[in-house]
């Protein structure tokens, strides 16, 4: 898909700094952080490299960990889905929609120059301004 002139970019949908967690934090800490920020996913980063995304922990990952009867004291690294699906901030929102659809995910890491910049969700893509850009790109 080609970006429409003046269409929204993935980076335009990022509304706040990413909420992160370390691989050594516990499942319970991840739960508390999700609730505290009222969000559906956390970005896993090492403390010494806070702008390099290692993985994303979503509500689904937590539910799957619970289903496996993992203890709430288990470290994040034991149940995080390794690898990150990301989009550069300068790419069109249609690219973000395509990735979420193809990989069946609800959150996408947004990078700027390859470094962690934020997270966008399906909800962000379905806001009126994003829909206008998505519709024009079809």
């Amino acid at each position: 898909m080609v970006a429409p002139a003046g269409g929204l970019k993935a980076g335009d949908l990022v509304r706040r700094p990413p909420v992160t967690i370390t691989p050594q934090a516990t499942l319970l800490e991840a739960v508390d952080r999700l609730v505290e920020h009222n969000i559906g996913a956390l970005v896993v980063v090492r403390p010494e490299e806070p702008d390099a995304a290692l993985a994303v922990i979503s509500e689904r990952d937590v539910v799957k960990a619970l289903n496996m009867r993992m203890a709430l004291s288990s470290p994040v690294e034991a149940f995080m889905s390794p690898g990150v699906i990301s989009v550069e901030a300068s790419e069109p929102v249609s690219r973000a929609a395509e990735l979420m659809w193809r990989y069946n995910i609800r959150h996408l890491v947004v990078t700027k120059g390859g470094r962690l910049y934020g997270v966008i969700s399906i909800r962000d893509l379905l806001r009126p301004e994003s829909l206008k850009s998505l519709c024009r790109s079809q």
Partner: protein
Amino acid sequence: MSSVGDLIKRSPVVASPADPIIKAVRLMADNNVGSAVLVDGSGRPVGIVTERDVIRGLARGARLEDPVESIATMGSLVTAGVKEDVYSALRKMRNRGIRHLVVVDEAGALRGVISMRDLLEDFVIKRLGERVWWPPPED
């Protein structure tokens, strides 16, 4: 192809309000879905539990053996009709800050669930985009 009924991909994942939370967790994980509809003895939808409800419940100290209705949204379900336009469904989700809608037929019987993800499909985005550019008068 722009009504809510067209987006239903599977029979609904259901549980009983008295089932333990872990059963809802297992249903969601095994079926790779984000919610389960709670139904009464005659199969009528009476509530919904989502991944977010489970996580909020845990943060409050709920145990996986507790009844699922203790963390679910019970009563006053936000529903969509099978023939409802997808844009109307999206507006309901946005206005209520929810990600899932219980879909019912004309008789109020459970037909399925749609989530925000279902709205990402190309033909849906096209329809939603049209409605955003030319919103109906009630907008």
